[in-house]
């Protein structure tokens, strides 16, 4: 029999430390995405206005400041999206097995999107 009180066991465990982590990083990534998303949409609109040819788009994407901002956008968007889809799955998928399977699938897919997208930008920028 342990003489430790339930409180001492609970301290430093579970939500005692990480309860608001998901909430907080969802907001932080949201704030980061405000300028990044606006920059991306209007940059692509400008590219489209100039015809959107392969050479023009490649030149744009491989420009150092653009490449860095694209990487930041991809990383923030994939992270924010993974957090959001996680909440949707947790809210609407009833079976525990399906829920865990979908959560893992979602996390892997988001990681794949981020890594593949960032790799493509780096390949362009460092070519």
């Amino acid at each position, binding site marked *: 029999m342990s003489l430790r009180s339930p409180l001492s066991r609970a301290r430093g465990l579970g939500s005692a430390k990480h309860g608001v982590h998901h909430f907080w990083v969802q907001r932080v990534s949201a704030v980061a995405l405000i300028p990044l998303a606006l920059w991306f949409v209007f940059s692509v609109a400008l590219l489209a206005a100039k015809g959107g040819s392969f050479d023009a788009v490649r030149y744009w994407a491989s420009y150092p400041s653009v490449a860095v901002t694209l990487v930041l956008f991809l990383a923030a968007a994939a992270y924010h999206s993974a957090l959001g889809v996680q909440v949707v799955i947790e809210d609407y998928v009833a079976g525990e097995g399906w829920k865990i399977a979908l959560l893992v699938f979602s996390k892997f897919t988001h990681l794949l999107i981020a890594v593949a*997208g960032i790799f493509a930008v780096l390949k362009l920028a460092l070519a």
Partner: protein
Amino acid sequence: MTTKSPADSRPLSPFMLGSYYRFQWTSVLSFAHRLTGLGLSLGSALLAVWLIALAGGPQWYGAVAAHVQAWYGQVLLFAWTFALMYHLCNGIRHLFWDIGRGFELKTAQYSGYAVVVVSLLLTAAAWALACFR
């Protein structure tokens, strides 16, 4: 050992839609925030495909560009632009709620109108820039 806890047989979140729940302007906007968020998640996959094609060379890029320029590609791109602008504007509305501002019913309704109007304007601005510049 698998025993069903009572929680397993409880109805899950969207069950009350339709029969028990009266739609309101503010709740429709709330659903739209989730729906556009999911749409944007799919969009991020297409964004990665676009960048991979760009890195793959003119042939790959041309193959993707043909779909983007087709009518369904343009419809999707327009829907995607609006989804992004809406999710962004409504997200800012949510951030104000997170710091405890704008909870009054009238304020929440008016900020909802503002979100729809501003996201439509931003969508129109992006497409005007792309098409008429």
